[in-house]
Protein backbone atom coordinates (compact mmCIF):
# COMPACT_ATOMS: atom_id res chain seq x y z
CA UNK A 1 0.00 0.00 0.00
CA UNK A 2 1.37 3.44 -0.82
CA UNK A 3 1.22 6.36 1.56
CA UNK A 4 -1.42 7.98 -0.66
CA UNK A 5 -3.64 4.93 -0.49
CA UNK A 6 -3.31 4.86 3.27
CA UNK A 7 -4.33 8.49 3.58
CA UNK A 8 -7.28 7.90 1.25
CA UNK A 9 -8.53 5.05 3.42
CA UNK A 10 -8.18 7.17 6.54
CA UNK A 11 -10.21 9.93 4.91
CA UNK A 12 -12.92 7.46 3.93
CA UNK A 13 -13.14 6.08 7.45
CA UNK A 14 -13.43 9.63 8.72
CA UNK A 15 -16.22 10.33 6.25
CA UNK A 16 -18.14 7.28 7.45
CA UNK A 17 -17.74 8.48 11.01
CA UNK A 18 -19.22 11.85 10.12
CA UNK A 19 -21.99 10.30 8.03
CA UNK A 20 -23.22 8.15 10.91
CA UNK A 21 -22.53 10.72 13.57
CA UNK A 22 -25.95 10.36 15.15
CA UNK A 23 -25.54 6.67 15.92
CA UNK A 24 -23.62 7.28 19.11
CA UNK A 25 -20.16 7.57 17.64
CA UNK A 26 -20.00 11.32 17.69
CA UNK A 27 -17.09 12.68 19.65
CA UNK A 28 -17.25 16.41 19.80
CA UNK A 29 -16.61 17.99 16.44
CA UNK A 30 -14.10 15.50 15.15
CA UNK A 31 -16.28 12.60 14.05
CA UNK A 32 -16.70 9.13 15.44
CA UNK A 33 -13.52 7.54 14.16
CA UNK A 34 -11.53 9.21 16.90
CA UNK A 35 -12.90 6.69 19.35
CA UNK A 36 -11.03 7.48 22.54
CA UNK A 37 -12.19 11.06 23.21
CA UNK A 38 -14.38 11.57 26.25
CA UNK A 39 -17.86 12.68 25.23
CA UNK A 40 -18.85 13.37 28.81
CA UNK A 41 -16.27 15.25 30.89
CA UNK A 42 -14.59 12.80 33.32
CA UNK A 43 -14.93 13.26 37.07
CA UNK A 44 -12.44 15.82 38.32
CA UNK A 45 -13.34 16.37 41.96
CA UNK A 46 -11.52 14.33 44.59
CA UNK A 47 -14.29 14.47 47.19
CA UNK A 48 -16.94 13.35 44.71
CA UNK A 49 -14.73 10.56 43.39
CA UNK A 50 -13.85 9.34 46.86
CA UNK A 51 -17.28 9.56 48.47
CA UNK A 52 -19.49 8.34 45.67
CA UNK A 53 -17.29 5.70 44.07
CA UNK A 54 -17.08 3.95 47.43
CA UNK A 55 -20.38 2.33 46.47
CA UNK A 56 -20.86 2.84 42.73
CA UNK A 57 -19.40 4.25 39.55
CA UNK A 58 -18.98 7.98 40.17
CA UNK A 59 -21.39 9.03 37.43
CA UNK A 60 -20.07 12.08 35.59
CA UNK A 61 -21.88 15.29 36.57
CA UNK A 62 -22.67 15.82 32.88
CA UNK A 63 -25.09 12.88 32.94
CA UNK A 64 -27.84 14.81 34.77
CA UNK A 65 -29.04 18.42 34.75
CA UNK A 66 -28.37 20.74 37.69
CA UNK A 67 -31.89 20.50 39.08
CA UNK A 68 -31.61 16.72 39.25
CA UNK A 69 -28.30 16.86 41.12
CA UNK A 70 -29.79 19.34 43.56
CA UNK A 71 -32.55 16.85 44.32
CA UNK A 72 -30.11 13.95 44.72
CA UNK A 73 -27.83 15.95 47.01
CA UNK A 74 -30.57 17.22 49.32
CA UNK A 75 -29.65 16.22 52.92
CA UNK A 76 -32.82 14.19 53.47
CA UNK A 77 -32.53 12.58 50.04
CA UNK A 78 -29.00 11.41 50.83
CA UNK A 79 -30.38 9.51 53.80
CA UNK A 80 -32.64 7.58 51.40
CA UNK A 81 -30.27 7.34 48.46
CA UNK A 82 -31.79 4.77 46.08
CA UNK A 83 -32.15 2.31 48.94
CA UNK A 84 -28.95 3.20 50.78
CA UNK A 85 -27.97 5.67 53.45
CA UNK A 86 -25.44 7.98 51.81
CA UNK A 87 -25.40 10.70 54.47
CA UNK A 88 -22.49 13.13 54.24
CA UNK A 89 -21.13 15.79 56.55
CA UNK A 90 -22.49 19.20 55.59
CA UNK A 91 -19.04 20.33 54.42
CA UNK A 92 -18.66 17.42 52.03
CA UNK A 93 -22.27 17.59 50.91
CA UNK A 94 -22.05 21.23 49.87
CA UNK A 95 -18.70 20.75 48.15
CA UNK A 96 -19.92 17.77 46.13
CA UNK A 97 -23.28 19.36 45.36
CA UNK A 98 -21.57 22.53 44.07
CA UNK A 99 -19.26 20.49 41.86
CA UNK A 100 -22.11 18.44 40.40
CA UNK A 101 -24.27 21.49 39.67
CA UNK A 102 -21.40 23.48 38.14
CA UNK A 103 -20.56 20.63 35.76
CA UNK A 104 -24.07 19.34 35.14
CA UNK A 105 -25.50 18.42 31.75
CA UNK A 106 -27.05 21.84 31.24
CA UNK A 107 -23.69 23.50 31.89
CA UNK A 108 -21.74 21.19 29.58
CA UNK A 109 -20.43 21.97 26.11
CA UNK A 110 -20.16 18.39 24.86
CA UNK A 111 -23.27 17.55 22.77
CA UNK A 112 -23.80 14.11 24.31
CA UNK A 113 -23.65 15.58 27.78
CA UNK A 114 -26.10 18.35 26.92
CA UNK A 115 -28.50 15.73 25.57
CA UNK A 116 -29.03 14.40 29.10
CA UNK A 117 -30.63 17.70 30.13
CA UNK A 118 -33.18 17.72 27.32
CA UNK A 119 -36.76 17.23 28.46
CA UNK A 120 -35.91 16.76 32.14
CA UNK A 121 -38.93 17.26 34.37
CA UNK A 122 -38.10 17.68 38.05
CA UNK A 123 -41.66 16.86 39.03
CA UNK A 124 -41.92 13.67 36.97
CA UNK A 125 -41.76 10.32 38.72
CA UNK A 126 -42.08 9.63 42.40
CA UNK A 127 -38.49 8.95 43.50
CA UNK A 128 -35.16 10.65 42.95
CA UNK A 129 -34.08 11.46 39.39
CA UNK A 130 -32.26 8.69 37.57
CA UNK A 131 -29.87 8.91 34.63
CA UNK A 132 -31.57 5.79 33.28
CA UNK A 133 -34.91 7.65 33.16
CA UNK A 134 -33.73 10.64 31.15
CA UNK A 135 -35.25 10.93 27.71
CA UNK A 136 -31.84 10.64 26.01
CA UNK A 137 -30.80 7.55 27.95
CA UNK A 138 -34.05 5.79 27.17
CA UNK A 139 -33.83 6.65 23.48
CA UNK A 140 -30.29 5.26 23.30
CA UNK A 141 -31.11 2.02 25.15
CA UNK A 142 -34.68 1.09 24.29
CA UNK A 143 -33.60 -1.54 21.78
CA UNK A 144 -31.27 -3.28 24.24
CA UNK A 145 -33.06 -6.50 25.30
CA UNK A 146 -33.49 -7.19 29.03
CA UNK A 147 -31.65 -10.48 28.58
CA UNK A 148 -28.41 -8.54 28.05
CA UNK A 149 -28.88 -6.34 31.12
CA UNK A 150 -31.23 -7.38 33.96
CA UNK A 151 -31.01 -11.00 32.85
CA UNK A 152 -27.23 -10.85 32.50
CA UNK A 153 -25.49 -11.78 35.77
CA UNK A 154 -22.42 -9.78 34.75
CA UNK A 155 -24.47 -6.62 34.18
CA UNK A 156 -27.58 -6.72 36.40
CA UNK A 157 -28.98 -3.28 35.65
CA UNK A 158 -28.64 -0.24 33.40
CA UNK A 159 -27.03 1.56 36.35
CA UNK A 160 -23.84 -0.44 35.78
CA UNK A 161 -22.64 1.68 32.84
CA UNK A 162 -19.06 0.41 33.02
CA UNK A 163 -19.95 -3.25 32.56
CA UNK A 164 -20.75 -2.61 28.87
CA UNK A 165 -19.32 0.87 28.22
CA UNK A 166 -15.74 -0.06 28.91
CA UNK A 167 -14.59 3.57 28.83
CA UNK A 168 -17.34 4.80 31.19
CA UNK A 169 -14.95 5.80 33.97
CA UNK A 170 -13.18 8.06 31.47
CA UNK A 171 -16.42 9.53 30.17
CA UNK A 172 -16.29 7.56 26.91
CA UNK A 173 -19.68 6.18 25.91
CA UNK A 174 -19.51 5.88 22.13
CA UNK A 175 -20.67 2.69 20.43
CA UNK A 176 -17.18 1.51 19.49
CA UNK A 177 -16.30 1.03 23.17
CA UNK A 178 -19.29 -1.14 24.00
CA UNK A 179 -18.52 -4.73 24.96
CA UNK A 180 -21.52 -6.46 26.55
CA UNK A 181 -20.41 -9.34 28.82
CA UNK A 182 -21.28 -12.68 27.23
CA UNK A 183 -22.44 -10.92 24.07
CA UNK A 184 -19.77 -8.62 22.67
CA UNK A 185 -20.08 -5.38 20.70
CA UNK A 186 -23.46 -3.74 20.23
CA UNK A 187 -24.77 -3.79 16.67
CA UNK A 188 -27.50 -1.17 16.52
Amino acid at each position, binding site marked *: MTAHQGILILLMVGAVGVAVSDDGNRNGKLGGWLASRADVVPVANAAYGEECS*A*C*HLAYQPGLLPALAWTQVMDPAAL*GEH*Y*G*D*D*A*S*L*TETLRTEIASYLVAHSADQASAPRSRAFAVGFDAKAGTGLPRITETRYFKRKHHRVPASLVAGNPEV*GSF*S*QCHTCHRGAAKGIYNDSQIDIPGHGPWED
Partner: protein
Amino acid sequence: MTSPLAIVLVATGALTLSTPLLAADAAAGKAGWTKEYPASDGSAARSCATCHGRDLTQPGRQANTGKVIEPLAPSVNPQRLTDPAKIEKWLLRNCKWTIGRECTAAEKADFIAYIKTQ
Protein backbone atom coordinates in the same frame (compact mmCIF):
# COMPACT_ATOMS: atom_id res chain seq x y z
CA MET B 1 -17.14 11.62 76.94
CA THR B 2 -18.83 11.98 73.60
CA SER B 3 -19.25 8.92 71.45
CA PRO B 4 -17.22 10.13 68.44
CA LEU B 5 -14.25 10.72 70.69
CA ALA B 6 -14.72 7.30 72.24
CA ILE B 7 -14.65 5.70 68.80
CA VAL B 8 -11.52 7.55 67.83
CA LEU B 9 -9.79 6.47 71.00
CA VAL B 10 -10.90 2.86 70.70
CA ALA B 11 -10.03 2.71 67.04
CA THR B 12 -6.59 4.17 67.50
CA GLY B 13 -5.89 2.03 70.54
CA ALA B 14 -5.29 5.12 72.65
CA LEU B 15 -7.93 4.10 75.15
CA THR B 16 -7.55 1.34 77.68
CA LEU B 17 -10.75 -0.61 77.67
CA SER B 18 -11.37 -0.58 81.40
CA THR B 19 -14.01 2.13 81.52
CA PRO B 20 -17.34 0.37 82.13
CA LEU B 21 -19.11 2.62 79.63
CA LEU B 22 -16.67 1.65 76.91
CA ALA B 23 -15.89 -1.95 77.71
CA ALA B 24 -15.47 -2.78 74.06
CA ASP B 25 -16.19 -6.46 73.63
CA ALA B 26 -14.85 -8.14 70.51
CA ALA B 27 -16.98 -11.22 71.17
CA ALA B 28 -20.11 -9.08 71.31
CA GLY B 29 -19.02 -7.37 68.10
CA LYS B 30 -18.56 -10.76 66.45
CA ALA B 31 -22.01 -11.89 67.56
CA GLY B 32 -23.55 -8.64 66.34
CA TRP B 33 -21.81 -8.99 63.01
CA THR B 34 -24.06 -11.75 61.75
CA LYS B 35 -27.23 -10.82 63.60
CA GLU B 36 -29.96 -10.27 61.02
CA TYR B 37 -32.50 -7.47 61.05
CA PRO B 38 -35.65 -7.32 58.87
CA ALA B 39 -35.51 -4.65 56.17
CA SER B 40 -38.25 -2.02 56.23
CA ASP B 41 -38.58 -2.10 52.43
CA GLY B 42 -39.44 -5.79 52.32
CA SER B 43 -36.07 -6.91 50.95
CA ALA B 44 -34.07 -9.74 52.53
CA ALA B 45 -33.01 -9.46 56.18
CA ARG B 46 -29.72 -7.62 56.66
CA SER B 47 -26.62 -8.02 58.75
CA CYS B 48 -23.10 -6.61 58.52
CA ALA B 49 -22.20 -9.79 56.65
CA THR B 50 -24.70 -8.98 53.89
CA CYS B 51 -22.13 -6.67 52.31
CA HIS B 52 -18.89 -7.45 54.19
CA GLY B 53 -19.20 -11.23 54.47
CA ARG B 54 -18.38 -13.41 57.45
CA ASP B 55 -14.66 -13.62 56.72
CA LEU B 56 -13.32 -10.10 57.11
CA THR B 57 -10.05 -10.98 55.40
CA GLN B 58 -12.01 -11.47 52.17
CA PRO B 59 -13.54 -8.76 49.97
CA GLY B 60 -17.23 -8.02 50.31
CA ARG B 61 -19.89 -6.89 47.88
CA GLN B 62 -22.19 -3.88 48.15
CA ALA B 63 -25.68 -5.42 48.22
CA ASN B 64 -27.35 -2.84 45.98
CA THR B 65 -24.66 -2.05 43.44
CA GLY B 66 -22.47 -5.16 43.51
CA LYS B 67 -19.34 -3.06 43.90
CA VAL B 68 -16.46 -4.90 45.54
CA ILE B 69 -15.67 -3.76 49.09
CA GLU B 70 -12.05 -4.23 50.09
CA PRO B 71 -11.49 -6.48 53.14
CA LEU B 72 -12.17 -4.87 56.52
CA ALA B 73 -9.55 -6.90 58.41
CA PRO B 74 -6.55 -4.74 59.28
CA SER B 75 -4.40 -7.89 59.05
CA VAL B 76 -4.82 -7.90 55.28
CA ASN B 77 -5.83 -4.26 54.73
CA PRO B 78 -3.70 -2.04 56.99
CA GLN B 79 -5.57 1.11 55.92
CA ARG B 80 -8.62 -0.02 57.88
CA LEU B 81 -9.42 1.71 61.18
CA THR B 82 -6.84 4.42 60.53
CA ASP B 83 -9.18 7.30 59.63
CA PRO B 84 -11.56 8.32 62.43
CA ALA B 85 -13.82 10.36 60.12
CA LYS B 86 -14.21 7.40 57.81
CA ILE B 87 -15.02 5.08 60.71
CA GLU B 88 -17.68 7.48 61.97
CA LYS B 89 -19.20 7.94 58.54
CA TRP B 90 -19.55 4.26 57.74
CA LEU B 91 -20.75 3.22 61.20
CA LEU B 92 -23.46 5.88 60.98
CA ARG B 93 -24.60 4.91 57.49
CA ASN B 94 -24.28 1.19 57.87
CA CYS B 95 -25.99 0.91 61.24
CA LYS B 96 -28.91 2.89 59.82
CA TRP B 97 -29.10 0.71 56.70
CA THR B 98 -28.61 -2.60 58.48
CA ILE B 99 -30.32 -2.17 61.85
CA GLY B 100 -32.65 0.67 60.97
CA ARG B 101 -31.22 3.05 63.58
CA GLU B 102 -27.92 4.51 64.67
CA CYS B 103 -25.76 2.19 66.78
CA THR B 104 -25.07 3.04 70.39
CA ALA B 105 -21.53 4.02 71.40
CA ALA B 106 -21.14 0.60 73.04
CA GLU B 107 -22.26 -1.25 69.90
CA LYS B 108 -19.86 0.73 67.77
CA ALA B 109 -17.00 0.10 70.17
CA ASP B 110 -17.79 -3.63 70.06
CA PHE B 111 -17.76 -3.73 66.26
CA ILE B 112 -14.45 -1.87 66.13
CA ALA B 113 -12.97 -4.17 68.76
CA TYR B 114 -14.03 -7.18 66.69
CA ILE B 115 -12.69 -5.78 63.43
CA LYS B 116 -9.37 -5.01 65.12
CA THR B 117 -8.91 -8.68 65.95
CA GLN B 118 -9.32 -9.74 62.33
